[in-house]
């Protein structure tokens, strides 16, 4: 019997992880192929795969996937370009924090999806509106979390740098930023995951392309196979981007693991 917190071999870890996926699909197949759930509500795994193949080959679904990825990445990069520098400044200078923090904390709780009708009025239903939804959904989270991370830099490291002759600019560039960098990368990885939910919501309303748009179309046709395929594709892309992010962080910050 395993004890609490006892580590497990990595092979066993991988096996257990795969096992749950297998069990999940088996349960799904049992419920659908066994006739316990109506096909109208839930397609079986084989139908889903066939529909997915159809989507990719006949309906140009790859283009939808590309559009969605571009929207997520575009909105997310914009949010990071604004959020990271502002967060660093807020974490560094308490008066900048005092100025922005109350508003950002308030704005963080505004649901990005609730802005969609307004954004459609302002920016139409084109790409600009989709990017804005993701931007609004991500930027305030990034600002706040980066500010907290930078603000909690070890004081003794800052003091050591001062006694070694660092000025304020040196403290920011060569102590605060490198010290917070791995956590900032972690924050971006987390927020990128949230950006994926915003993009689908944005695409469900007033869109002519993208994974979310395909899902709405399929709902009109009661094609649950396509809907599930779309959802699984989103999950897979999330998994891949997460993996790439983690690999990138390991490569960029070897000192964290050394």
């Amino acid at each position, binding site marked *: 019997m395993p004890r609490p917190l006892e580590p497990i071999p990595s092979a066993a870890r991988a096996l257990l992880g795969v096992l749950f996926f297998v069990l999940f699909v088996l349960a799904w197949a049992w419920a659908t192929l066994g006739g316990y759930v109506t096909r109208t509500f839930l397609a079986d795994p084989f139908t889903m795969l066939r529909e997915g193949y159809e989507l990719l080959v006949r309906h140009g679904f790859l283009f939808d996937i590309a559009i969605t990825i571009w929207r997520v990445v575009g909105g997310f990069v914009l949010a990071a370009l604004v959020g990271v520098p502002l967060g660093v400044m807020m974490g560094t200078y308490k008066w900048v924090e005092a100025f922005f923090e109350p508003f950002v904390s308030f704005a963080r709780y505004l649901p990005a999806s609730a802005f969609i009708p307004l954004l459609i009025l302002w920016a139409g239903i084109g790409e600009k509106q989709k990017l804005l939804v993701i931007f609004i959904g991500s930027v305030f989270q990034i600002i706040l979390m980066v500010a907290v991370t930078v603000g909690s830099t*070890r004081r*003794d*490291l800052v*003091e*050591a*740098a*001062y*006694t*070694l*002759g*660092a*000025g304020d600019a*040196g403290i920011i560039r*060569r*102590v605060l930023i*490198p*010290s917070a*960098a791995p956590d900032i990368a972690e924050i971006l990885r987390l927020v990128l995951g949230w950006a994926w939910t915003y993009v689908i919501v944005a695409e469900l309303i007033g869109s002519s392309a993208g994974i979310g748009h395909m899902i709405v179309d399929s709902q009109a046709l009661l094609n649950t196979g396509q809907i599930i395929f779309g959802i699984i594709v989103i999950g897979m892309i999330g998994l891949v981007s997460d993996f790439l992010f983690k690999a990138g962080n390991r490569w960029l*910050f*070897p*000192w*964290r693991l*050394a």
Partner: protein
Amino acid sequence: MSKLRIDGVTRTFAPSRKDGTPTLALQPTTFDVADNDFITILGPSGCGKSTLLRIIAGLDRATEGRVLLDGEQVTGPGPERGMVFQSYTLFPWLTVIDNIAFGLRERGIPEARRTGLSHDWCARVGLAGFERHYPKQLSGGMQQRTAIARVLANDPKIMLLDEPFGALDNQTRSLMQETLLDIWQRETKTVLFVTHDIEESIFLASRVLVMSARPGRIKAEVRVDLPYPRHYTLKTSPEFSALKARLTEEIRAEAMLAARVQTH
């Protein structure tokens, strides 16, 4: 002229609550440090000895009085007063060599000279072969060696050490004390070393300043007339034991006073 002059320095901390009373951490303290002196400040925990050192480093401000280095008043931290901390303060994202070169870089020393100096200092503290290691990969003793090299590479006028060996095991601490003395003799630096370890304070210093329990003040000054270079066997000599007995008496009274303050 004295190298460093501590002139009537006091420190009062503001109350933590609005209706609280301010805490006096340091009573008026005055002393001089001569060039190339090795002075230890010995005191019980919480006596304000670290506060005093932080004021000299410029990391804390004196409530009254002033600190003069070569006749110039200290107003903030600077590279001419290098400090080694009790906690390990190497920059974890930099390798040993880049840690040692940190101050040189901040001061705008050209890269070629920076590289030369940092490799030189790395070897002088006995860390040749560890240049590319990250702090996490080093033992506590090696981290403090790097911290000492990092300060010395800056060629400071005075070196401040705040219980730098406090977290090390006994054997390592003993070795580090000898290493530090070696370096001090070779480089002829002025050193101010804070500790609560009586043996350490005698072994290293030419002069021990004993501090009272909080609020701290210098209650005694003991000359250590043991010749340098000092070997660890010195610690078992009768002269050393006599000094140790005397300082133990001085400190014991203060420690008891401090304990009484804490229990009441």
